[in-house]
Every structure is written in structure tokens, then in C-alpha cells.
């Protein structure tokens, strides 16, 4: 596509300012100013008791404590990493399989697509509550079924560390597999039909067509889907908040719930600010990666 011709900046100066000034002012208020405040607070010791006094200056101690000695931070980091590594591949292969299956004409296709999207579009809080009800000790529908098969007769799904994490993963897979499916289906639908037809006439098998034509053509969308899912899965908060609250113990504590607990339950605000800045920095790197890929696709 021909690059869009752009008007020379100098000739329409006022209008350009009208376009860009609001967004600049807005970002200054909601992004730049808070980051600055966080920077200032992160080098102080601020707790609820010393909140009014704005805290004592302690240099980079918060960062040093966080990165070198805080086991809870690394535990939360490990849980988040494990969570992402498990759910994203499952969501990807599940989504790909469903997309390939649905990528044909049949009656009721539109309706089925609408229904399949329900988990992704409803609020994550509601998703969490749905699964909480399912896994409710003794009375939840899934717990009852599992009891029937001989599991969890004396214990709840959310009272053992391993099963609590697995339950979180199940709820996430239910919520986001349709999202991956939707992205990949968009790619499959937009794909040129000619190469596939030609290959079929030459006697290529379905597997050949999938592996040598469809997957390579889908590659940019696969990368987008994997990146977006990895970034979003690493930010999981709502369903953890609803389903386990990080427990039992800290067995399902994620980076986000750790940050939330530090800041808004322990009210260790200076330390919380340091956690937030570290997270923001890591996500900036990931965002840069995503930006490169997304810009590559749009061109």
C-alpha cells in the first residue's frame, strides 16, 4: 500500500495543536504525574502511620530489598511465570484447533461464534464467580462430580496449593481460548483461497496445506495472539482476587496480587511504589516488542 501522504506540519499548526494538546495534557495528568509521584515515593519509607509526613528518605533501599531479599516477590514471580507457561500454549492450541474447525461454511455459524465469545466478553469478575460456584466445597457442581469420582471428598479444591492453581488455570483457559480462536479465525477468513485450492488440486493432504500454507500465512497473527495472551496472562488479577485471594498461604500469589497486597492491605506505600515501577519497566519492554510486531502487520 502506498504510504499516506501527510500534510506539512507547519501549514496547519493550530489545528494540529488542537488535535494533540488534549492527549498530551491528559497523559501528563494520568501517566507522567503519577509516575513522578511514584518515583518520589519509591525512595521513601511510607506506611499508613507516616503517610501524612510523606515518609523518611531511604534512598534505593526499597528497590534493593525487593530485588535482593524479598522471597515473596520471587514466589509471586514464579507463580506468574508458571501460570503463563501453562495457560498460553493450551489456549493457543485450543484456539487454533477450534478456528480451523469453524473455518468453513455451515448453518448457524454466526450464532455459534457469538455464543463461543461469551467467556471472553463478560467481566473477569463474573468469570471468577462462575468458577468459584462450580468449585464450591461439597455443593459446587464440579466438586460434586469430582466427589462422585472419588476426589476432594474431604478437602476443597481451593484448600490445596496445587489444585487451587489448576482451578485458576482452568478458569483462565475457559475465558481466553475463544479470544485466541477469534484472532486466528480472522486470519484464516482473510487468507487468499487460491494457494490452498492449487495445493489441493496438486494432491496435497490437509496436513500439508495446514503446515506449509496456512500456518506460514498466519504467522503474524500467531505472534500477536501469543504476545497479547502472554502479556495479559502475566497481569492476571481479577480471577485470583475472586477465586483464591492468593491463597492458600501464598500458593497462588501472582505479581499483581502481591503488588496489591503490599500497597493496599499492608499500606506499605513506598515499597508498593517500588514494586509498581519495576513492573512498569518490565511491561514497557514487552510493550516495545508488541509494538514492533503490530506495526509490522499493519504495514
Amino acid at each position, binding site marked *: 500500500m502506498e504510504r499516506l501522504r501527510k500534510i506539512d506540519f507547519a501549514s496547519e499548526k493550530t489545528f494540529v495543536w488542537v488535535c494533540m494538546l488534549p*492527549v498530551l495534557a491528559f497523559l501528563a495528568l494520568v501517566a507522567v504525574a503519577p509516575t513522578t509521584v511514584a518515583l518520589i515515593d519509591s525512595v521513601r519509607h511510607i506506611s499508613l502511620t507516616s503517610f501524612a509526613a510523606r515518609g523518611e528518605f531511604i534512598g534505593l533501599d526499597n528497590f534493593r530489598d525487593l530485588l535482593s531479599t524479598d522471597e515473596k516477590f520471587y514466589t509471586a514471580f514464579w507463580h506468574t511465570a508458571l501460570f503463563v507457561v501453562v495457560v498460553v500454549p493450551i489456549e493457543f492450541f485450543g484456539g487454533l484447533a477450534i478456528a480451523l474447525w469453524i473455518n468453513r461454511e455451515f448453518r448457524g455459524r454466526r450464532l455459534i461464534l457469538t455464543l463461543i465469545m461469551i467467556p471472553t466478553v463478560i*467481566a473477569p469478575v463474573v468469570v471468577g464467580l462462575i468458577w468459584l460456584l462450580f468449585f464450591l466445597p461439597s455443593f459446587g457442581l464440579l466438586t460434586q462430580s469430582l466427589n462422585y469420582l472419588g476426589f476432594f471428598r474431604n478437602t476443597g479444591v481451593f484448600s490445596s496449593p496445587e489444585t487451587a492453581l489448576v482451578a485458576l488455570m482452568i478458569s483462565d483457559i475457559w475465558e481466553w481460548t475463544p479470544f485466541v480462536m477469534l484472532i486466528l479465525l480472522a486470519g484464516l477468513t482473510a487468507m487468499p483461497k487460491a494457494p490452498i485450492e492449487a495445493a489441493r488440486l496438486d494432491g496435497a493432504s490437509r496436513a500439508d496445506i495446514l503446515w506449509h500454507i496456512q500456518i506460514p500465512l498466519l504467522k503474524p497473527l500467531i505472534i500477536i495472539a501469543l504476545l497479547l495472551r502472554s502479556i495479559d496472562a502475566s497481569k492476571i488479577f481479577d480471577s485470583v*482476587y475472586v477465586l483464591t485471594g492468593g491463597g492458600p498461604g501464598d500458593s497462588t500469589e501472582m505479581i499483581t496480587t502481591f503488588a496489591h497486597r503490599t500497597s493496599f492491605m499492608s499500606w506499605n506505600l513506598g515499597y508498593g511504589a517500588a514494586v509498581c515501577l519495576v513492573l512498569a519497566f518490565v511491561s514497557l519492554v514487552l510493550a516495545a516488542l508488541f509494538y514492533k510486531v503490530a506495526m509490522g502487520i499493519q504495514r
Partner: protein
Amino acid sequence: MVHLKRLVYSLPVALVLFATVFPYLWILLASFKRHEDLFSRPVRWLFQPTVESYVAIFDKGFDLFLLNSVIVGVSSTVLCLTIGTFAAYGFSRYKIPAGNHLFFYILATRLGPPIAYALPMYLIFDRIGIANSYLGVALAHATFNLVLVVWMMKSFFDDIPREVEEAAFLDGCGPFRVFFKIALPMTYSGLAAVTIFVLIFSWNELLFALILTGGENRTLTAMIPSLVGHPKGLWPQVAAACMIQSVPVLVFIFFVQRYLVSGLTFGAVKG
């Protein structure tokens, strides 16, 4: 044979459909059940439906929280649509100095973990006195929705042939007239879709709502989990609250199906 083949094709689809729809259906049913019907062992599939849970949560003041969600959703939507549409047009049509950096920065506000912005926002909003107000949470919601507006609207503006606006310029229209009378109206259907997405994302959001609202300003999503803490009698009410929260979303989503992929990937993928 034809029947067998059709069955083989449709069985996996049916399974997937069941797995996705059934959990939602279950909570829909739960919202019309009495407590004894929901928590019976074995599962009671037939029951006398009742709307008492819906009545009960409105008695608890959920109409207020519902209204709060609407107020926050609408005001954050108006705010970020206004700001974002202008910016998108600027990005699409003009050479903005350091424009790429700004474009990227807007994306970064959405891809970062909300908690990393929530605490700093809380710190500054608390200082200027807008923590626990509609304004604070509306600003927060507008922030993470800005990328959706800017990226999607930019792609809609990019799709408009440049010639139309050039002709208007030659006829002596200024840039304001060209924007409001020509460019903007050509994106109306896209703009409507973006509006709906922004509304839904604000309506569904939990973390900022938890941190930046309190007491009478609480939104629906922040209030529903608080029902769970009660003794087990409240589950039908939780289910009812979930329905009130999610049914409007499904209705609205139905109208923007065509833009669903774009909306969920903030314009990175075109549907």
C-alpha cells in the same frame, strides 16, 4: 454416510459450544433458584424459578452501584473518545514531531499491569482530592482505553481516501470544517463500535474500581465479590448480580460483532 460425516464434523463443535456456554447457563439458572435448589445434593435440575434474588440485591442498594457503573462508564467514554479521536486524526493526517514515541507511549499505558498505574494514580489522586470520586476512576478507565480509541480510530481515518478532504481544502474549508464535516462523519459506524467497546471495558473493570472508589461510589464489579463473603445463603444473589452485570455486555457485543477482533486487540488485528 453423509449423516455420519456431518456428525463427525459437528460433534467437536457441539462439545466446545457446551463447554463455553454451560458454565454461563449454570449461573443464569442459579440466579433464578432458591438457596435450597442451588445447594442440593444431588444436583436438582428441575426447580420452581423465582426472582427473589433479583429483588433482594436491589433492596441491598445495588441499583446505586449499577448507576455508578453507568456514570463512570459514560463519563470515561466521553472523555477518552473526545481526546482519542482528535489524537487519532492528528496521527493519521499530520506529521507529529516524535509522533511514534507518543503513539507507543499510549500503547504502553494499556499493556502494563494496571496495578503499576493504580497505586501511583491513587497517590496523586489522593493528594489532589479526587480519590474515591467518580472523576478519579473515570480518568483511570479513560487511560487504559485511550489506546483502543487512538489505534482503532486512526485505522478508520487511514481508510478514508485522502482526495475527499483535499477537494474540501481546495474549496476553501479550514481543517476544523474538514474534520467535523467530512472526515469524522465518514467514520461514524466505526466510532459507534469503538464507543461500545470502551463502555464495556470500563463497565467490566475491577482493579481501578476497587482502588479508586469507595462507599457510595463503588461500581458494580467492585461490589459483587463482597456478596460472596457472607454466609453461604447469598449465592443466588451473587448469580443475579452477575446476570445484571453481564447481560447488557452480551447485548451490546452483539451489535459490534463485526469489529470484535479489532476491539479486543485494540486495532492491532483487523477483523
